């Protein structure tokens, strides 16, 4: 009974430390990836703030995992890792909402451009017709 219990304990502690390293490395790489995209101008700074914020949050919680447990108990979540899912979901939802806002703005701008182009084309056509000496 005794050695079996110990083995189980050992097994558990190894696993959880390993996942912490993976989590730290993962969040760190993710943060670097976002920063690199900004540096190469693949994302504009204004659109990357949410990504940066959430990658920082994840890095924070993977380093200070007792904070995650505190957060979970504060929120009344019995199983601490479930708090990660809430954070993850929030991150995704916020980013998606931001996309909808940007999409709406872009389609509005797009509409204006289409209208302007249509009007300008008509004006150019009528100017050409006026210049043309032959009867239309």
């Amino acid at each position, binding site marked *: 009974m005794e050695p079996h219990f110990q083995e189980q304990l050992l097994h558990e502690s190894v696993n959880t430390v390993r996942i912490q390293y993976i989590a730290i490395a993962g969040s760190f790489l993710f943060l670097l990836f976002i920063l690199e995209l900004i540096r190469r101008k693949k994302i504009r700074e204004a659109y990357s703030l949410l990504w940066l914020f959430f990658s920082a949050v994840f890095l924070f919680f993977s380093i200070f995992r007792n904070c995650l447990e505190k957060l979970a108990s504060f929120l009344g979540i019995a199983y601490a890792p479930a708090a990660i899912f809430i954070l993850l979901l929030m991150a995704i939802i916020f980013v998606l909402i931001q996309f909808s806002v940007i999409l709406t703005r872009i389609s509005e701008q*797009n*509409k204006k451009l*289409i*209208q*302007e*182009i*249509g*009007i300008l*084309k*008509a004006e150019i056509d*009528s100017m050409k017709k006026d210049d043309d000496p032959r009867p239309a």
Partner: protein
Amino acid sequence: MYRILAVIPAFNEQETVSGLLESLSHAQEQLPFDILVINDASADETGQLARRSGLASVIDLPCNLGVGGAVQTGFLYGLKNNYDIVFQFDADGQHRSDEIFSLLDPLWKGEADVVIGSRFLKRHTGYRSTWGRRVGIRLLEFMTRILIRQVVTDCTSGFRAYNRSAIEFLAEHYPVDFPEPEAVILLGKHGFRMKEVFTPMNERMGGRSSITFLRGPYYMVKVMLSMMMVALRRSANSKSQDPNSKQISNSKTQIPCKS
């Protein structure tokens, strides 16, 4: 004299557009106005036919915007070219050119900023309609009454005329999703005076209603939601509109009348 512009949004209307322009040209004999066809990226000959007729100016939009964006192009054009009155006339043959005069009448009398041609102002006048559609129409009328405290019996009608102040406003703010009912709420919220006149309409000659039996309830929910959002939006928009709306309310009292 007023400068009057007829805006005809057209999307794949090659069957009806020539006849329509023909009938409008007869109306022009009594009342001079210019015609602008907004060809909303039709796949067919609509644009060429309209241009070949020589009766209308044609704007070809490079991408399809839907009726809201197309009509707004007409407002932008009307504003740019100093028209006093813009009226919308649909290309599917529903609207009758002999009703234009009664549609515009309240504008030069200064009775309204916006005139809507209604099929339902007089009851039992032969406009055939299904049961479901009548319920929907009543519901929209009720919504309008609640949201802006004005009675508009036919807020999906596209047969409308606008004076200069309404043109200026809508060139900037014309709604896109469900333009006709949303515009009613928007205009009401911003203090424009709307008036309905009874205009009988034809059964459509080309095209088909976008609202089928199954889509009807779905359409109603979406429209009513949009109308409510427009009604709620006033305070959110007012910041950017403040200088404009003041200008509009000033110019509203002096409706262009030099005739």
